[in-house]
C-alpha cells in the first residue's frame, strides 16, 4: 500500500459565535468535530457532504490555512500542527489548493504571468528567466497557449480560469492538492475537460488529491476513496465502488438516492426522501447527529453518539445499525 501523505487525528474546529463580553458565553459552532483520516500517496480522496457540513473547513485546516481547535495533522509522518510560520511556509510548496470560484480566486489586475510567477518568487524558484520559462511550461501543462501569459483573467472563460488556478497551484511542484469544489462552477462539457486534465496531471506528477465536492456523480467517476461528512463528522469512509454499490450509513444511502439519474426509464418517484431540516451545528441533537432525519432511528440513536468503526476492507461507518449488514 502507498505511503500515507496526510494524516489527521481527531481534528476539530470550533467557532465561537455571538455572546461577546456582555452576554457572557457565546454559542459554539462545531464545524469540524473529531475527524480522523489518512490520505495515501497518489490517491484521489473525495470528501462529500451538503453545505454547512464542514467539508471546506476540514480542507482548510488540513493545510493549516486555518488553525484547528484541536487534534493533529501530519505530513509524511511529520507533525505539522505545531510547526512555526517559517517551517510551515517551507512546506507550503508541497501542500496546495485549487479554489471553487475561478472568478474570485484570480486577481483581476494581475497578468497571468504574474499570477503564476508569484508563488515561484515567494519560494525562490530561480532567476527571472527561469521563472518565466516555468510559467510558460505551466500554461502548456494545463493546455493553454503561452501567448496568454500577457493577458488578464477577465479575458478568459470559466474553464480557462480554472486551468490557470490549477497551474498556479502546481507551480512549486506540490504533492498534495486540495481541490475545493474546483469543477462545481463549470458547465458539464467543460467540467469533463477539467477533470480529464486533473486526472492526467495526477499521473504525470504523482499527485495526491483531496477532492471536496457536493456532486456525487463527479465523485463516482473521479475518486478512489470517498468520505461522507455530516455536521462536522465523517459518517462513512470507503472505496468509491463499495460505497456506491452498498452504502452502510443511512445518510450516504439517502444522499446517493437523491441524485437525479440521467435516464428517464429509471425515474424513481418511490425512492426514499429525507424528511425534515438539517439540525444546526450550533445546537446538535443528543445521540447520533443524524437521528432526527434518519428513517431507521431507534432508541439508542437518540442517546448514544456512534463512533466511526472499522468494518474491514478499508470501510468505516458511524452508525449503530449499518445497512446491508
Amino acid at each position, binding site marked *: 500500500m502507498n505511503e500515507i501523505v496526510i494524516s489527521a487525528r481527531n481534528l476539530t474546529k470550533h467557532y465561537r459565535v455571538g455572546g461577546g463580553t456582555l452576554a457572557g458565553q457565546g454559542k459554539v459552532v462545531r464545524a469540524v468535530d473529531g475527524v480522523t483520516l489518512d490520505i495515501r500517496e497518489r490517491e484521489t480522496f473525495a470528501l462529500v457532504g*451538503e453545505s454547512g457540513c464542514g467539508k471546506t473547513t476540514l480542507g482548510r485546516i488540513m493545510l493549516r490555512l486555518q488553525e484547528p481547535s484541536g487534534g493533529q495533522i501530519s505530513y509524511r509522518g511529520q507533525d505539522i500542527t505545531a510547526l512555526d510560520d517559517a517551517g510551515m511556509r517551507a512546506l507550503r510548496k508541497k501542500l496546495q489548493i485549487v479554489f471553487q470560484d475561478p472568478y474570485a480566486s484570480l486577481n483581476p489586475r494581475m497578468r497571468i504571468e504574474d499570477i503564476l510567477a508569484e508563488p515561484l518568487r515567494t519560494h525562490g524558484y530561480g532567476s527571472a528567466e527561469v521563472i518565466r520559462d516555468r510559467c510558460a511550461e505551466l500554461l502548456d501543462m494545463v493546455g493553454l497557449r503561452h501567448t496568454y501569459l500577457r493577458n488578464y483573467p477577465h479575458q478568459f472563460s470559466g474553464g480557462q480560469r480554472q486551468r490557470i488556478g490549477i497551474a498556479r497551484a502546481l507551480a512549486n511542484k506540490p504533492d498534495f492538492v486540495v481541490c475545493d469544489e474546483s469543477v462545481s462552477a463549470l458547465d458539464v*462539457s467543460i467540467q469533463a475537460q477539467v477533470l*480529464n486534465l486533473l486526472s492526467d496531471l495526477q499521473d504525470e506528477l504523482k499527485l495526491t488529491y483531496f477532492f471536496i465536492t457536493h456532486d456525487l*456523480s463527479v465523485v463516482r467517476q473521479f475518486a478512489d476513496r470517498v468520505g461522507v461528512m455530516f455536521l462536522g463528522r465523517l459518517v462513512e469512509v470507503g472505496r468509491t465502488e463499495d460505497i456506491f454499490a452498498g452504502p452502510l450509513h443511512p445518510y450516504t444511502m*439517502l444522499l446517493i438516492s437523491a441524485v437525479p439519474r440521467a435516464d428517464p426509464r429509471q425515474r424513481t418517484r418511490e425512492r426514499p426522501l429525507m424528511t425534515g431540516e438539517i439540525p444546526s451545528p450550533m445546537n446538535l441533537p443528543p445521540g447520533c447527529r443524524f437521528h432526527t432525519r434518519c428513517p431507521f432511528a431507534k432508541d439508542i440513536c437518540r442517546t448514544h453518539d456512534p463512533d466511526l468503526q472499522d468494518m474491514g476492507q478499508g470501510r468505516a461507518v458511524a452508525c449503530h445499525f449499518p445497512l446491508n449488514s
Partner: protein
Amino acid sequence: MANPSGNVLSVRELRTEFRGGRGNVRVLDDISFDVGRGRIVGLVGESGSGKSMTALSLMGLVPKPQGQVSAKSINLDGIELASISPDGLRQIRGRDMAMVFQEPMTSLNPVRKVWEQVGEPLRIHQGLGRRAIRDRVLEMFELVGIPEPKARLDAYPHQLSGGLRQRAMIAMGLICEPKLLIADEPTTALDVTTQAQILRLMQELRDRVGTSIIMITHDLGIIAEMCDEVNVMYAGQIVEQANVFDLFENPSHPYTRGLLASIPKSTESRIARRMPSIPGMVPNLARLPSGCRFRPRCTDAMAICQTREPAVTDLEKDHRARCWLHARQDAISQGEPL
C-alpha cells in the same frame, strides 16, 4: 397561427436582440416550442445558451430599450402575448404565468414578512384584503409542505432555510393558480437532498393542480427525472426537440450526444476515468461562426456545415433537430415547432 388545442403555450419564431456598441447581438434566434396542458417541458443547455433569456422574453422582463423581443406568435392559452401592451402583460404576469427564480434569497425582499410577499399577487390581481390574503397564503404554505406553516407566516426570509425559501417562492408562483409556471434553475442553489424534495413537490403540484411547467436547467438528470418534452438549446437556438424518452434513447444532434456523453455514468466506475468531453467552448454570440453554430466543436462537421445554417429536420413525430446530418429534402420542417 392558431393555438392548437391542448397547448397552454405556443411560441413561434421568438427572437431577442440586444443593442450594443458594435451592433446588435441576437441572443435568441428562431425559438419555437409548445407546452401542453399539465406537461413539464424542459429547456436544457449550458451557460449562455439562452435558457433564461427565453423565460425573460416570455415574461416580458427583458430590459428595454437595449433588449428587443419579437415573435411571430406567443400564444398563452388564447391570449396573444407577441403584440400585447405593457399594461396587458402586467395583468397576465403573476396571474396566468408566473416564474420561480434560481436564488430564493435574492428574489425575496429581506425586510418584509414572507406572507406579505407570497400574497402580493393576490393583492395586485384579485384586490383581496389582508385577512383573506393571509388565509390563502396559509393554505399555500400547507400545499407546498412548509412545516409549521402558521408560525412561518410572520417570518422574514433570513429566518427560513434555502429549501423553505424556495418552497415559499413556489407558493408565490402558484398562488393565483397560473396556467404556466416557469421555473428557472429552481434547485441549483440547493443541496441534493433538498433538491429531491423540491422536485418531488413540483411533480405533485403538476399532478394535483394540473399546472404546466417550463423547467429550465443545465442538469440532464433533472430533465430525465421531471420532463415530458425537452428542448436542447445551444448558442441562442433550440437545436433538438423531442419527447424525453426519444431524446435520451436516440439523441440526434451532435451537441445533445456530447452533453449526454459527458455526464458521469452511474454504471461506469472510475476505471473508465477519462470522460468524454466536448472540445472547445460556447461561441461568442457577437461573433458566431459561419454556417452551423456548433460546427467548430462538432466531430461530425461536413463541408455544408461551414457555409449554411442547418435547416430544422423532422426525424420522427415530435422529434426535430437543427443539423445537416439529418437533413433530407422531404423532411425539412415547414415552420412548425422548433
